């Protein structure tokens, strides 16, 4: 007789597939990338270089100029999403959750559809719409007498990045909308009724009752936006190409990494510097997520019903 519990093998067995797949396609490549960033090639032979690649990336005036330019652009890309995409998403969700709105299902679907489109489609269609030669944008503006407002936005350094960020907002506004919508629906009717009893209705009901209850969802959306934006690449690549023109005005970390790692035109790919940039991106995202987890999420109040 032994009162020791038998070892619960089934736990290991059930975990194994997920752990194996995750290790093979996420953890090993991640560490391989971190490892690759510590090496350099001298005459086609790999040599350990310590933190030399990072010294080049941050110390060499050219590399660091490209890096800070990409990081700055990436930050602006993120800010536009936070200031435009998420408030609009919340607003749309608040409107959709109004029980008196007719056709809510239609609007919900229509606004969500761009999210499932491919980046290549979105990039191409918007590029065509904004084209000064064939696009509908100049014609539409001139129809309302605002032709002078039109500019070849994607070709101007001052506007290109903001334009692309807004295109991305158009594509993805459905995601915060859906998440907030779900959060709003999960607020129990008793809470709403109680607030109505106390005379809180309309806009003040949203600000005082609903908003505090959906704050955790907004936090999740912010962190998803952060990770998504700092890993972004597809839209810029499909709309502006790997050189992220005009004059690198739309170069973000993803396109900078791609150009370095795979090379471009006559520039041969440099796997080690590419991995260095990828590692820098990894740490930027890691720091951002940590700030969120430890500084923000722990302070969010949760309500139990």
């Amino acid at each position, binding site marked *: 007789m032994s009162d020791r519990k038998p070892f619960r093998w089934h736990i290991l067995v059930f975990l194994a597939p997920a752990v194996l797949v995750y290790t093979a396609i996420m953890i090993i490549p991640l560490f391989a990338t971190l490892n690759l960033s510590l090496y350099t090639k001298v005459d086609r032979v790999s040599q350990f270089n310590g933190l030399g690649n990072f010294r080049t990336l941050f110390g060499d005036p050219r590399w660091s100029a490209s890096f800070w330019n990409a990081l700055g652009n990436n930050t602006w890309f993120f800010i536009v999403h936070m200031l435009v995409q998420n408030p609009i998403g919340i607003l749309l969700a608040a409107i959709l959750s109004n029980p008196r709105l007719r056709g809510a299902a239609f609007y919900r679907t229509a606004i969500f559809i761009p999210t499932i489109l491919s980046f290549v489609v979105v990039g191409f269609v918007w590029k065509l719409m904004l*084209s000064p030669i064939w696009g509908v944008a100049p014609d539409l503006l001139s129809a309302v007498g605002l032709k002078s407002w039109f500019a*070849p936005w*994607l070709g101007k350094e001052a506007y290109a990045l903001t334009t692309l960020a807004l295109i991305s907002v158009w594509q993805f506004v459905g995601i915060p909308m859906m998440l907030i919508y779900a959060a709003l629906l999960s607020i129990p009717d008793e809470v709403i009724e109680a607030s109505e009893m106390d005379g809180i209705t309309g806009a003040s009901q949203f600000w005082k009752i609903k908003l505090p209850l959906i704050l955790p969802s907004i936090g999740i959306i912010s962190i998803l936006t952060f990770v998504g934006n700092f890993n972004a690449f597809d839209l810029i690549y499909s709309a502006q190409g790997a050189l992220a023109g005009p*004059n690198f005005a739309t170069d973000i970390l993803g396109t900078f990494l791609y150009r370095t790692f795979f090379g471009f035109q006559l520039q*041969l*790919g440099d796997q080690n510097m590419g991995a260095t940039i990828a590692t820098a991106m990894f740490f930027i995202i890691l720091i951002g997520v940590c700030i969120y987890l430890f500084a923000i999420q722990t302070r969010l109040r949760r309500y139990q019903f």
Partner: protein
Amino acid sequence: MTKTKLIGALMASTLLASAAYAEDVTLTIESWRNDDVLIWQDTIIPAFEVANPGIKIVFAPTAPAEYNAVLNSKLDAGSAGDLVTCRPFDASLELYKKGNLADLTSLAAMANFSPVAKSAWQTDDGAATFCVPMASVIHGFIYNKDAFDALGIAVPTTRDEFFAALDKIKADGTYIPLAMGTNDQWEAATMGYNNIGPNYWKGEEGRLALIAGTQKLTDADWVAPFTELARWKDYLGDGFEAQTYPDSQNLFTLGRAAIYPAGSWEISGFNKQAGFKMGAFPPPVQAAGDTCYISDHTDIALGMNAKSAHPEETKKFLEWVGSPEFATMYANALPGFFSLNSTPVAMEDPLAQEFVSWRGKCQSSIRSTYQILSRGTPNLENETWNASANVIKATETPDAAAARLQEGLASWYAPQKAN
């Protein structure tokens, strides 16, 4: 039981299949020319297969922008085809040095090519040649003949005539004078800077002096093409900043633009698309009677995968690719890709004939940034794209652009450091 039987049957069928193919050797060609699939399948490959029974050729292209990356990974994995289409200069040289491309110096067909034709696929000392040259592309301007006739413009030969013609087209207003945009950047560098540049830096003379370090990108001859490009701005269409390469092609072939700064590779596409008569002229010179220089860029060649399982058959195919027979077939199937073979090739396309006739009256050169100078970081070719686009948009002055390029080049290229 059924499962084992099924597997057995499958294995037997693969054995049979491989046995059936064992008589023929199949060679695969890696290429970025996916536009040419039909020409290879319908014209070139059958011609070779009829003459060489027992060898089958498969043309397996990848998208141009992905070719280099895909090829490199295939070569590393050992799954690349027997024949590898070679990019000019460093991309292929690197493959040769890594041992991916075989040395083809001893190929009999190499005698059919001039040293200049082979230079793009040789080691720096010229000792080893690793690809059989196939074709070059020539830069110039293609114009809408109907538009020129309607406006009474003669084909310009000097720069003053060129800008006078542009002014006249602009004043008339029917056509956009020049079909070019800066969105994709490379148009500005390739069809702009490297198109008009050789006339200023005297072709090979300036190009080799730059490599030797006796001239600098900030010298007057190298800044002047930027100065001319800056003048183009006024003749481009509205919103040229967001105009892409296909936009420019369409503006011209739809008859909305009068002059297209071109590479000869456009010829076959334009012949199909354009509903008007076209002509071509080389980059205009400073004064009538000056020697003209053209960019006759060695662009495409064919090499052998060093790990090919069928080296004998592959070499046999390469000997054929180096023959005058192939040259004639290729040049006529793809007007605008001009044979590098020393034997003169008769071409039927009038526009292609016009382009190739410049070889007789002008001095040929290749793009200034391709040989050696784009080996380091920052990459001179890619920087030139950016600089040319900036100069046309007037966001950077010609002098500042040239100074930036020179500084970048001197930062890693020893012969330029001394200056």
